[in-house]
Structures are given as structure tokens and as C-alpha cells.
């Protein structure tokens, strides 16, 4: 078998694994830009992306994308279809009207496409463009179902708002 056939075969297999994992979790998914799989590290996909859609409305809820991803091994050494170790994660969450909500970025983390969560002991940033909220810290877990972000090792949040209108100085 030529290396081209091997590559396309592996790519299809990995996409199938991700979709099967999502189907088990009751979501729907589409993988994007799984452009190449290296034969030397068979389980690595570059420009990996997956969109999770609402099963009722069909609208995108979460979109995971990364520069590289590989299926994470289980404790027994086998590959787990739902788990991915990703490099250069960009996780976008969307509102019901499909407008962009939070964007979370992490240089390295683990993603579970079935439970729709992502986490890492390393650094991360999160931001929401519409109101200028920005978050950065170390050690995070994002629960995509509840849209809950847990940080366990230092967090800084910047809010673009004010507490109150200070009274001007009296003469």
C-alpha cells in the first residue's frame, strides 16, 4: 500500500472514531481540515477541527480546532476515540443564534469530544469580544455542556465595566 493510501485511510479512520464517539454522546459532529496524517506518527492530525452541533436545532455549539491533535491513549495503552491530545487549541463556544461567545485558547490540552470538555494543567486564555471580558491563568477545565470554566492554579480576569460613577471632587 502506498503512503498516500495509508494517509487517507488513517485520516478516515480517525474521523470515524471521533464521529462514533460523538454519536455515543448524543451530539453531532463534523471534522474539518484533517489535512494530513504523518505516517511516522500515525495518530497525529495537523489542522484538526471538530464542530459540535445541537441535535435539535443543528446549530453549532462548540468548535474545537488545533494545529495538531492525536488520539489520547487510555490507561491500558489503547487509543480512546473521544479523547484527543491537542496542541494549539482554539475552542469557540457559540450562543443559540450561532454568534460567537467565548474563545478559549491553550497551547496544549486534552479534549473529550463526547463530554464536550477540555482541560490542561498549563496556561490558557479566554475572551469574549462582545463585552471585552478576558481571562488568563494556569490549570483549567472547561465543561462545554454547562459552559463552566474551572481554574485551579491562578486566574486573572479583566472586565470592561465599572463599579459606579465616582462623584466629582468637591471644591
Amino acid at each position: 500500500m502506498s503512503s498516500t493510501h495509508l494517509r487517507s485511510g488513517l485520516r478516515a479512520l480517525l474521523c470515524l472514531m471521533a464521529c462514533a464517539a460523538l454519536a455515543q454522546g448524543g451530539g453531532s459532529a463534523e471534522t474539518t481540515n484533517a489535512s494530513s496524517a504523518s505516517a511516522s506518527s500515525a495518530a497525529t492530525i495537523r489542522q484538526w477541527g471538530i464542530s459540535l452541533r445541537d441535535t435539535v436545532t443543528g446549530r453549532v455549539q462548540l468548535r474545537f480546532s488545533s494545529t495538531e491533535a492525536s488520539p489520547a491513549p487510555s490507561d491500558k495503552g489503547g487509543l480512546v476515540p473521544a479523547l484527543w491530545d491537542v496542541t494549539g487549541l482554539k475552542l469557540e463556544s457559540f450562543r443559540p443564534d450561532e454568534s460567537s461567545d467565548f474563545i478559549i485558547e491553550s497551547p496544549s490540552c486534552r479534549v473529550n469530544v463526547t463530554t464536550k470538555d477540555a482541560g490542561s494543567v498549563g496556561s490558557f486564555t479566554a475572551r469574549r469580544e462582545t463585552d471585552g471580558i478576558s481571562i488568563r491563568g494556569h490549570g483549567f477545565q472547561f465543561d462545554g455542556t454547562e459552559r463552566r470554566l474551572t481554574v485551579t492554579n491562578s486566574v486573572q480576569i479583566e472586565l470592561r465595566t465599572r463599579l459606579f460613577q465616582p462623584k466629582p471632587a468637591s471644591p
Partner: protein
Amino acid sequence: MIRSVLLPLLALLLTLASGSVLAQQQDKILLSATNCVLELEKGVYHLWDHVRVESPGVLQITCDDLRAALPQDKASGTSGPLPTGGKLQSLIASGNVAIELFQPGANGSTNVVRAFGKQAEYGSQQEILILTGDPRIETASGVMIGTEALIYDLKSRTMRNRGSYRIELKADILKGSTLFNRGTNSPKSR
């Protein structure tokens, strides 16, 4: 001639720029802590361990635990860079609460009001800080110690209380006062 026109213009630009920087600072709140759980959709933030809240030029809070409710994003779907809600709905700080409020004083000076207690609540509707649990507020002129709650109105910069309270004034504030310079009715020495 050119100089006489340019200088006032430059001064005006600098004034506008500094005003803009100040406004931007006051539109910013920084929260930091070791741990947190952020309910992104509900806008409920819970931070604990080494919590610090900073609103540059306005206030600073340190405490053990903080719960904050953020304004609902009414501009859903729009792409404006600033929040439309504008204000934090509420803050509840608890455990070793220390607050520093920076208030503009006369002649460009800054007055610092320090408040301490076991819990502090801020509500954006009334713009008040309610301090409970051995509440104590320190100003340049003295200390106010309450038994139940001290309530500080951020808009009017006035204080009121719930329960009894004690005020300790610094002797300095009586300096120059004529209160104790009156004549007495004691017999004059011969």
C-alpha cells in the same frame, strides 16, 4: 505666534488624552485569585483563595472568597467592543475583607477610605457597600466601628449604620478649632 497657538492646543490634547485614559481605567475591573469557577453563560463568577478585586483609581478589595454576578449581555449577536450593560450587578466578598476606596479630594488629592469586615456586599442598583462582621471603616478623620453593619453609599460618599456604632475621631481634626479656646468661668488668678 505659532507657539502661542500650538501650546494651548497641545495642553488641550493632553488633558483630553489623560481624561480618556482615566475613563478607560475606571471602565476596567481586574479580578484575580488562585481558584475560580466561572459560569460563563449565567455570568456568575466564584473566586477563592487570595482574591483581589481592583478597579484602578476607584477601589481595591482583598478577601478569601468572592462571588460576582455580571451584567446580562443584552447586545447578544452584536459586535460592539464595550459592554452594553455597563455595570457589575453584584459582588459578595467574604473572609478577611479589606477594602480601599479612592475618592478624589480637593486640589487634585486622593482620599483613601479603608473598610474591614467579615463580609462586604455591593449592589449596583443602589451603589452601596454593606459591611458586616465586625465592620470598621477608617478615614483620615477617624474610625467608625459598628456592631451589626456599616453601609457606605458610593455615590454620595456618606455612611450609615445598622445596629449601634462607635466613632473615634483623631485629635488632629480639632487643631485650629476654637471649640476649646473659649473663656471659662473659673476665678481669675490674682
